């Protein structure tokens, strides 16, 4: 048994033993659970993939004369301005002004909120255009200027839902192509798409939220951020395997971090043909090994994690609840899965390569004493289901 303080003292001394969730599997096999639990202090987990419920609050600073901005666009992407004078929220899935969307089906969605966020983090210049009705204390009614992230007072990423604990595997049983946030799904079940880092993914390594909670320090695209709340749609009461690992969506995290400290390459604008724009975010979360049980859960392997295959031509949009079958991440990573007697090609939207890179970067920062683990200030709910929206007449 170890405490957060003991682990942090070892991190500060530079003596902490840190492994990635990928490395720890063989390590525990070799050493045995109890011996390994004494030695290992932290296991790093990570994920990199599209997370649509992402965005950032920015503060532009005041112009001379001042302006109480009521409508604003960054690189022609609308930002929400219904807050204080020069504050705004830029959402990842906001389309660019005049984007024809799906009027020329399938639309291309080349650029949107996620791409503006990527440009800001790359320290590229973006254009601000803003309008107002004008007041006595804020007389300016229009402005156009150019700025980089360094010109902003704050740029704080605030993502209401990241790090889905597990996720659907999407396919298309119909005879027409289907354009989705899981990419193009070819007719008659020619391909499936999954989106999870599997055995590296944060909440699959801590399935009961024993160490990850509100206040947990996380690696958010290179900056040190935090879990600020349960993520939207957090639904831990779900179908779980004997190992406790959810076999469907389940838990989520709401994350925040200082965008000025984020690194290019870990926040990327995303375009889905026929669907829209989004943002791919890289997240790393350290799991402090407080006891052998926590360590055991981090040794989960892709062959022990299952996800549900859902038909995105009918069952997903119509919310029928029907599941074709369940497949393991080991099967998915083999490149083909067998569905209804047919070999189906597999694609992925979550980058295991990037997740591995993040898990290793985070492990390096912890070993160097630059990243401490933190005890949650409140746990995430462990019993909770998602409600549906009832359409009332």
């Amino acid at each position, binding site marked *: 048994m170890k405490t957060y303080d003991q682990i942090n003292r070892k991190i500060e001394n530079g003596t902490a033993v840190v492994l990635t969730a990928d490395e720890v599997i063989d390590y525990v096999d070799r050493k045995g659970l109890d011996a390994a639990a004494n030695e290992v202090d932290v296991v790093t987990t990570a994920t*990199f993939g599209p997370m649509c419920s992402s965005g950032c609050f920015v503060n532009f600073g005041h112009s001379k004369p001042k302006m109480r901005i009521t409508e604003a666009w960054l690189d022609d992407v609308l930002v929400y301005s219904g807050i204080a004078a020069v504050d705004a929220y830029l959402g990842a899935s906001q389309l660019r002004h005049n984007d024809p969307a799906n009027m020329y089906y399938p639309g291309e969605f080349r650029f949107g909120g996620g791409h503006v966020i990527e440009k800001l983090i790359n320290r590229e210049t973006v254009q601000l255009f803003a309008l107002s009705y004008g007041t006595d204390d804020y007389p300016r009614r229009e402005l156009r200027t150019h700025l980089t992230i360094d010109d902003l007072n704050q740029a704080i990423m605030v993502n209401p839902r990241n790090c889905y604990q597990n996720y659907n595997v999407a396919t298309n049983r119909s005879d027409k192509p289907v354009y989705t946030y899981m990419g193009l799904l070819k007719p008659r079940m020619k*391909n499936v798409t999954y989106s999870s880092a599997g055995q590296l993914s944060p909440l699959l390594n801590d399935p009961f939220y024993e160490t990850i909670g509100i206040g947990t320090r996380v690696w958010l695209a290179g900056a040190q951020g935090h879990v600020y709340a349960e993520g939207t749609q957090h639904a831990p009461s779900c179908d779980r395997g004997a190992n406790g690992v959810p076999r469907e969506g389940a838990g989520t995290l709401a994350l925040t971090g200082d965008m000025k400290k984020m690194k290019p390459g870990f926040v990327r604008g*995303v*375009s889905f043909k026929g669907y829209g724009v*989004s943002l791919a975010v890289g997240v790393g979360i350290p799991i402090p090994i407080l006891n052998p049980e926590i360590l055991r859960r981090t040794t989960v392997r892709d062959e022990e994690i299952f996800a549900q295959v859902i038909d995105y031509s009918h069952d997903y949009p119509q919310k029928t609840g029907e599941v074709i079958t369940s497949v393991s991440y080991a099967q998915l990573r083999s490149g083909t899965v067998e569905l209804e007697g047919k070999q189906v090609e597999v694609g*992925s939207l979550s980058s295991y390569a990037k997740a591995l890179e993040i898990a290793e970067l985070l492990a390096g920062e912890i070993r160097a004493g630059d990243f401490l683990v933190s005890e949650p200030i409140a746990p995430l709910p462990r019993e909770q289901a998602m409600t549906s929206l009832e359409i009332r007449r």
Partner: protein
Amino acid sequence: MTTKKLMFYFPKSETEKPIVYHLVKDYDLIINIFRAKVTPEEFGYLVLDVTGEDADIQRGIEFVRSFNVEVNETERGLTWNESRCTSCGNCLAHCPTNALHIIDPVTRKVGFDPEACIDCLACIDNCPFHACSSVFADTTEARI
């Protein structure tokens, strides 16, 4: 027998000549066309594999050039920008020849083998990160 990938760029005036017919009939070449845009009154292109004896391929190319058609023997139609690629793997189920593939099963990094690419351009529409682009400068295909 050799197989060579060629790109023909047609000036406006030459698009009506049955060039491919002559390559087959007069130069004994096997032709496999991957991609063509031959619109009257416009600049056009043709991407094809030719298979035959080296000397016949060379004579065929000279024949095509005699029509003022530009022949490119080296250029690839598809460009994969490694720095834009995140190795997400969405392209894997859309690339028919595995030109885009996992180069290392441990790190699961994605790589591109230009030799295997047949310029179908499916990856362009299916890459969420715009890592793939085409040299064919028509409308939506040359965007990044």
